[in-house]
């Protein structure tokens, strides 16, 4: 036994790099081995009749159904509708959230006026407002988009507000010795300094958007992924329901990746760029 630790390293060049490449592929394969195994087991259980397809369609069936739905245009159409709703709602949420956070983050008066009502509203579960929204806005696009907007505004507002309020006062002191105007301070200190928190808020907002959309589309809608799934329920089509779930999953994953990409490009100045956690 020795209490000496020797750490060595080699430069990756030529052969070693190739070797590492195959090693990376191996790691990749290992990461996906267990999901693949699970799906295989699932397929096996369905094929052998162990699992009733009335409860759960088989992976093969889901693939076939998915393809059919793509071919006859059902999926692309409903996906387009859902995407548009989510994007509109999120767009409204970002605009409103950012404006409110700037008002309450940059002025004491603004904080007194804006923050208290928002903190109270925030404690309401947004989904509980569904009946009220339908009553107010009918069954068109408005209640769905607004529900998404409502849910997604809070994470944007809360995080950006916190980001602005926690700017290091020493930096503000420094810019004041440089004779910065209010506008210069906002542009060079507050906005870039609060950007990490804004992006964290955005990540939550995106997650909330999908959640709100799922509920809004399942409660009342003539189109959209949620509607497609509810329709399928009436005909016991678990395969279509599962296709819908899969689509939601992929959408969630993709949007999360987009925000992560934004984080890694916009926050390049952080040496230990926090590898984003999932929402």
């Amino acid at each position, binding site marked *: 036994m020795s209490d000496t630790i020797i750490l060595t390293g080699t430069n990756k060049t030529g052969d070693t790099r190739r070797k590492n490449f195959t090693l990376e592929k191996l790691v990749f394969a290992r990461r996906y081995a267990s999901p693949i195994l699970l799906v295989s087991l699932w397929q096996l259980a369905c094929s052998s009749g162990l699992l009733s397809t009335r409860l759960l369609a088989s992976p093969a069936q889901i693939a076939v159904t998915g393809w059919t739905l793509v071919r006859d245009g059902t999926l692309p159409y409903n996906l387009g509708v859902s995407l548009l709703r989510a994007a509109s709602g999120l767009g409204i949420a970002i605009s409103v959230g950012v404006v409110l956070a700037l008002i309450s983050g940059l002025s004491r008066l603004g904080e007194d006026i804006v923050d208290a009502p928002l903190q109270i509203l925030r404690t309401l579960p947004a989904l509980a407002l569904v009946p009220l929204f339908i009553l107010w806005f009918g069954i068109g696009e408005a209640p769905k988009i607004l529900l998404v907007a409502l849910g997604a505004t809070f994470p944007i507002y809360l995080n950006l507000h916190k980001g602005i309020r926690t700017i290091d006062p*020493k*930096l503000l*002191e*420094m*810019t*004041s*010795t*440089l*004779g*910065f105007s209010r506008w*210069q301070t906002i542009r*060079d*200190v507050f906005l*870039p*300094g609060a*950007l990490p928190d804004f992006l964290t808020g955005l990540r939550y907002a995106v997650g909330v958007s999908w959640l709100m959309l799922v509920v809004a589309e399942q409660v009342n809608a003539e189109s959209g992924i949620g509607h497609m799934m509810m329709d399928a329920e009436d005909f016991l089509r678990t395969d279509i329901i599962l296709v819908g779930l899969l689509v939601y999953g992929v959408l969630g994953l993709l949007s999360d990746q987009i925000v992560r990409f934004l984080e890694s490009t916009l926050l*390049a*100045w*952080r*040496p230990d760029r926090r590898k984003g956690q999932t929402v």
Partner: protein
Amino acid sequence: MTGRRAEVESGTAVIVEQLTRRFNGGPPVLDALDLAIAPGEFVALLGHSGSGKSTLLRTLAGLDPVTEGAVTRPRDVSVVFQEHRLLPWKRVWKNVVLGQEDKGIRQRAEAVLEEVGLSHRKSAWPLTLSGGEAQRAALARALVREPAFLMLDEPFAALDALTRLKMQQLVADLWKKHRCAVLLVTHDVDEALLLADRAVVLERGQIRVDVPIPLPRPRRHSDPEFERLRTLLLDALGVHTS
């Protein structure tokens, strides 16, 4: 910069008269304090922790209000704090010319970074700098404005001893070139003796000791006069050497 020397030396002096400062109606931290710094003069401000050195400097910088007394100072001043206070989201050279928006900024940033020996890091992100490098950048940011009066609040206190020596040398060189008035807050008597024309000691709200340092530059610790002044200042600070 050479043409500036005469202009600066004939410029405004820093004059503090009867400055009193209290926090929340408590006892005065600065108590009818008087201090004058001539144009181009290098003054070291010594004092125990909590004696009000930073308060005086912040008042001079315009960060704290003048409530009692009067302060006269040149318009163009710069401050370097103990922490570098660089904006993490701007590259080093952009931090140096922060707030300046004309065409020549890039060139000016490069010139001043060269002066402080940081050219090779001009495009780095601040959070990747070492403590000494970050403080050099802060110094560059202060100098690029060609201040008539430069304030340094324990700028090297957080650096390791070796880096501190290098930075002191750098400040000596820069001052020789720029000849702005300097107020260096420090609790390091040697630092004061290496750099300043005059050392003042702040105690109970006033300048109690005011010692000229007529040593030739560059200064050496081994100089017997250096030794005498050090004992004198340490005595004034209440630290008795045997």
